[in-house]
């Protein structure tokens, strides 16, 4: 016999087993009485993936990335494949289900149960069920008509029944089998099988033979029997091409039949003679996997050649083989075709190849996608092409020829468009999956809730990070709570409903001052809690009835409202409630989530009204919550952390990507908290998984934030990133103060100072890079007195045009601040600032009363503004110095018109030195003369001669223009001269700078007859600016 029997290998503990292949044929899936489903990559796979589905698994079926199992807990469950994430319960019986089967398209599942019933359930919507009643004993097996019209079932009452699914009626019933009272007592499992594709024949194992019944006429057309088969046949399975039938019997005899010729083409004996109870064909028809009642898995390989050589016209077979060989050679081309045909699919495939993570959201897409790098896999594109060619050939030949086994592939139409993504399940942020025996039910900034659910114990442990809040608690979990939340006031627990009990919400209100520290609420029948959260003084529960129920922390029922979609998760903080729900169905791995943010404070309002939640592509939500400062924040499965930016119309800004910090591809960070001040992302590093185990106790690590700005390797990019991060993460100060919380003013002023320093640094950098326009843009972001520093910096680095623009900007800013000047700012820093502004604006107001507003005021106040007591000094003090700066000369001494006013710091002079003038004034007082000044000294007269009517300001403007027009060489020589002059000034420079105020004082006396010290902060910043210079 050409067929090769591979050695058996241990798969499950002894008992009934079942086996199936996945759609691509890459995996063998087995289930057994140990309650595990194992996914084998091949028979030699030494480490098959195990999914625990229950105490015992009786039967499994797999299609479209959904694994359906009949388990001992009386349910038919669904899991994603290959991830193995639980995907819900399809249906329940009063006792265990015995057999499950998919229809050909995978849209429905049929399940037979020991409670005599057969149910047909829609995979997409398990509420759509059809129940077929009529058997009088446990159902042995079920099978779908490939055309989806009929369903056949066998029962222990001896009958094999064909049902019409839509009408839920019996079409025909044959009393074929021996009667028994239970599946375990039945001689044969009597797994029925319907011929795929053509759906002509129904194979029924009856004792040692297989009877074939014809569709529609329901007449017995043939019986396959073998003299060697002395034991009853347990299972039958059709080859995917529908030409061959494999049978497995109690004695371990495996037979492959050519149905047309009623010939036995292959016969194999189980190596130990154990009963075969599971049988499945590889989708290509070349292999048969089988399992026995001892839990072993076996494989028959190389079936195609044996079958094709049997009855078929050899010649034609050969030509087909050639055809397929050609196809194999042309594979790259075929791949190209398939790629262009379904770009989305291949994208998914590639995606999945470089990322072996367990992403439930993409599980489906992955399953139907071809694994391009796998030699054994059949590329759907190339296969289709091959079939097309074959079809042509058939037309030419004009004869009906059965396809060779190798070409056997499902022929149902392939939908190429985007596929809907299964909805992400509801979850509690900060919890690990519910199917784990030991799990975190909640880990947040308050504490940890752990759930244990093993043989010994079903309990909940509550532990607080800060033992000052409450001591640790240990509760027995008799209700089977699966959801939990923890706050400073209470522990909230919730359990789903069971057959008898309604879904319950239990609250341990430990901060209550009376003796009753606990309350419990039953939800209406049919309503399950999906997500819970706690806020300050309230608890919320979102239910399966798309309802949000609000309770006070003491147990009073409060508001309730409907949610726009099935909830994904919720988070509470203070008076804020954040809800994320399914807005609709996403496609190709994307989730379509919506978000609502509600405020329960004095002014109840909905801040975010169901806007889409921007999560990464092909990802799902993995954490939702508030930062410790109360800013909504979420994290998706791609590890991107996004923070709500309240100052930009409630947009979401990505602030960190935890994947950037992972060392390995399959490492993840499990986030437990986000802090804005200090900027910390608290999370638990998980090696090779998405969530941590409860033991050993995981340690928290801290990740920094980093905005994904461009070019963060450059100095500019780094500073920009720092600046915007600082701006974004101090948004919460505004929110907190507006909602009446105390804020850490020191921290806020620190943050603001940091921002201004960063702006100044960026300004200096741009100056160095000769980007003056950019300088002005940066200056627009600065506060007023930092702008004045920038002006100083600009003038020191001899950028006149820039300095002038900046002084205009400073004036604008002063005017803008005039409006809010009356408002009392909470911060010292700002208050100082506003004080400063009010001086300025006062001055401006005055001067505008007398004439037009002047930029001078700003600059004057820069040197003169302060809260320190003012000292009057005579202008004569500075006379000596003044003489050194001839530019100042034309200025007539200012009349000391003003007497210091005690209340308002009204220090500005009524006279009006021009903007430029004062700028030079500032300029000169801190620096030795420049080339321009020297030049001006010499050329002033000629300018005045040319334009005798010019005012001082205009003279300098004019002079500047002329100086610019000089040739570069000339200017250089002037600069050189200035440097010569500077030489003797150098010694003095340091003293001058250290006594900056003295200096400035003298000149401000000139102007304002007032002496003021510069601001502390600005002094610091100016020191910085000088050092940069």
């Amino acid at each position: 016999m050409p067929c090769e029997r591979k050695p058996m290998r241990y798969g499950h503990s002894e008992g009934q087993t079942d086996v199936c292949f996945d759609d691509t044929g890459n995996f063998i899936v087995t289930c057994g009485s140990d309650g595990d489903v194992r996914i084998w990559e091949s028979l030699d796979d030494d480490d098959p993936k195990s999914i625990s589905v229950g105490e015992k698994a009786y039967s499994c079926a797999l299609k479209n990335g959904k694994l359906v199992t009949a388990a001992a807990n009386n349910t038919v469950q669904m899991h994603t494949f290959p991830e193995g994430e639980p995907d819900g319960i399809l249906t329940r019986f009063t006792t265990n289900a015995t057999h499950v089967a998919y229809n050909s398209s995978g849209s429905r599942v049929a399940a037979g149960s020991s409670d005599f019933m057969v149910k047909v359930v829609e995979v997409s919507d398990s509420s759509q069920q059809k129940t077929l009643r009529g058997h009088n004993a446990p159902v042995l097996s079920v099978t779908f008509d490939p055309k989806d019209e009929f369903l056949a079932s066998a029962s222990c009452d001896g009958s094999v029944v064909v049902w019409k699914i839509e009408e839920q009626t019996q079409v025909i019933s044959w009393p074929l089998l021996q009667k028994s009272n239970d599946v375990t007592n039945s001689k044969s499992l009597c797994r029925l099988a319907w011929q795929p594709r053509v759906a002509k024949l129904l194979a029924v194992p009856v004792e040692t033979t297989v009877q074939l019944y014809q569709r529609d006429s329901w007449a017995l057309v043939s019986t396959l029997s073998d003299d060697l088969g002395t034991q009853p046949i347990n299972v039958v399975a059709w080859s995917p091409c529908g030409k061959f039938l494999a049978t497995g019997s109690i004695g371990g005899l495996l037979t492959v039949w050519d149905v047309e010729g009623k010939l036995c083409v292959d016969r194999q004996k189980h190596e130990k003679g154990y009963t075969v109870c599971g049988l499945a064909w590889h989708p290509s028809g070349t292999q048969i996997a089988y399992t026995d009642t001892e839990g072993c898995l076996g494989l028959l390989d190389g079936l195609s050649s044996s079958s094709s050589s049997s009855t078929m016209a050899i010649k034609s077979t050969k030509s087909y083989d050639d055809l397929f060989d050609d196809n194999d050679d042309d594979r790259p081309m075929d791949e190209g075709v398939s790629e262009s045909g379904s770009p989305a699919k291949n994208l998914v495939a590639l995606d999945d190849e470089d990322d072996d993570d367990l992403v439930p959201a993409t599980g489906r897409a992955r399953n139907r996608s071809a694994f391009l790098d796998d030699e054994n896999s059949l590329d759907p594109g190339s296969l289709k092409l091959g079939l097309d060619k074959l079809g042509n050939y058939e037309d030419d030949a004009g004869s009906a020829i059965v396809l060779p086994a190798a070409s056997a592939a499902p022929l149902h139409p392939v939908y190429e468009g985007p596929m809907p993504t299964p909805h992400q399940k509801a979850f509690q942020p900060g919890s690990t999956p519910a199917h784990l025996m030991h799990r975190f039910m909640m880990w947040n900034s308050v504490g940890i809730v752990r759930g244990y659910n093993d043989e010994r114990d079903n309990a909940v442990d509550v532990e607080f990070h800060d033992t000052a809040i409450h001591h640790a608690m240990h509760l027995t979990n008799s209700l089977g709570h699966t959801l939990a939340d923890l706050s400073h006031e209470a522990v909230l627990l919730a359990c789903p409903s069971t057959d008898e009990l309604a879904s319950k919400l239990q609250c341990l209100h430990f901060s209550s001052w009376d003796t009753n520290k606990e309350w419990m609420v039953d939800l209406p029948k049919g309503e399950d809690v999906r997500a819970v959260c706690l806020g300050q003084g309230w608890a919320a529960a979102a239910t399966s009835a798309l309802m949000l129920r609000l309770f006070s922390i003491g147990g009073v029922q409060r508001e309730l409202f409907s949610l726009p979609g099935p909830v994904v998760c919720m988070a509470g903080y203070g008076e804020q409630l954040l809800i994320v729900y399914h807005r609709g169905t996403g496609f190709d791995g994307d989730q379509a989530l919506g978000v609502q943010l509600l405020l329960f404070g004095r002014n109840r309002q909905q801040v975010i009204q169901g806007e889409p939640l921007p999560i990464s592509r092909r990802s799902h939500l993995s954490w939702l919550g508030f930062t410790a400062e109360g800013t909504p924040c979420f994290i998706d499965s791609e590890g991107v952390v996004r923070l709500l930016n309240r100052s930009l119309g409630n947009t979401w800004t990505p602030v960190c990507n935890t994947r950037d910090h992972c060392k390995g591809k399959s490492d993840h960070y499990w986030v437990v908290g986000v802090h804005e001040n200090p900027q910390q992302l608290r999370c638990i590093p998980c090696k090779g998984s998405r969530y941590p185990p409860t033991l050993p106790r995981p340690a928290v690590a801290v990740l920094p934030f980093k905005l994904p700005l461009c070019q963060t390797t450059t100095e500019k990019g780094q500073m920009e990133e720092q600046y915007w991060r600082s701006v974004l993460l101090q948004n919460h100060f505004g929110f907190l103060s507006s909602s009446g919380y105390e804020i850490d003013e020191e921290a806020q002023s620190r943050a603001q100072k940091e921002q201004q320093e960063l702006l100044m640094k960026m300004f200096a950098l741009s100056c160095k890079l000769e980007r003056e326009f950019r300088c002005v843009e940066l200056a627009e972001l600065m506060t007023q007195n930092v702008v004045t520093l920038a002006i100083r910096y600009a003038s020191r680095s001899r950028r006149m045009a820039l300095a002038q623009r900046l002084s205009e900007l400073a004036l604008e800013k002063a005017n803008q601040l005039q409006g809010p000047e009356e408002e009392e700012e909470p911060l010292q820093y700002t208050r100082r600032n506003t004080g400063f502004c009010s001086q300025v604006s006062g001055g401006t107001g005055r001067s505008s009363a007398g004439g037009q507003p002047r930029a001078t005021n700003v600059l004057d106040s820069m040197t003169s503004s302060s809260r320190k007591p003012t000292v009057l000094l005579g202008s004569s003090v500075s006379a000596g110095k003044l003489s050194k700066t001839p530019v100042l000369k034309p200025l007539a001494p200012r009349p000391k018109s003003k007497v210091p006013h005690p209340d308002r710091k009204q220090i500005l002079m009524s006279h009006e030195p021009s903007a430029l003038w004062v700028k030079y004034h500032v300029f000169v007082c801190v620096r030795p003369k420049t080339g321009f000044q020297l030049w001006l000294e010499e050329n002033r007269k000629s300018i005045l001669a040319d334009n005798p009517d010019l005012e001082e300001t205009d003279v300098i403007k004019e002079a500047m223009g002329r100086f610019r027009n000089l040739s570069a060489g000339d200017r250089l020589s002037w600069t050189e001269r200035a440097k010569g002059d500077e030489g003797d000034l150098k010694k003095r420079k340091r003293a001058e700078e250290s006594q900056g105020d003295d200096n400035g004082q003298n000149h401000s006396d000139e102007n304002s007859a007032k002496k003021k010290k510069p601001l502390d902060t600005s002094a610091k910043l100016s020191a910085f600016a000088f050092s940069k210079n």
Partner: protein
Amino acid sequence: MDPSEVEFLAEKEVVKIIPNFSLDKIYLIGGDLGPFNPGMPVEVPVWLALNLKQRQKCRIVQPEWMDVDKLEEIRDLERKEETFTPVPSPYYMELTKLLLNHASDNIPKADEIRTLVKDIWDTRIAKLRLSADSFISQQEAHAKLDNLTLMEINTTRSFLLNSLNCMYKLRSNLQPGSSRGKSQDY
């Protein structure tokens, strides 16, 4: 040096703890510690960690090297090599003893760790004895001992030095001529 003195020095080593209380930075002569946030790991000297642990104010996070796999590796290497191999911490023995005595509930597989560290210690001390033996028997003038920890040196120092002194005296008495010369030097 007394072993207790070495232990005292070891208590200056830094270890991570997870406090269950909240406290601002504390300013000590040796440096600032904290701030302490409940649930957030923070580095403190061993003496403070033990003190807090005894008052049930924190959980101690075991040092990275205090792990069964890593210690097994070190032990195997130590057994394989002739010379002393580098140890994970200059105070590995003291720290193991202190942490396991006071915080064994925070350290998984405490017993295994204790055994492994003891194994490493025994191996090293055996090597030390062996080298001291050959040092004396071959009458070497000096020996190079890398990667020894303070505690290990301490175990042998007083004994070795005293015995060397004794032997020196004995040997010098054996050679009367030279001994007279030497005594004159004194």
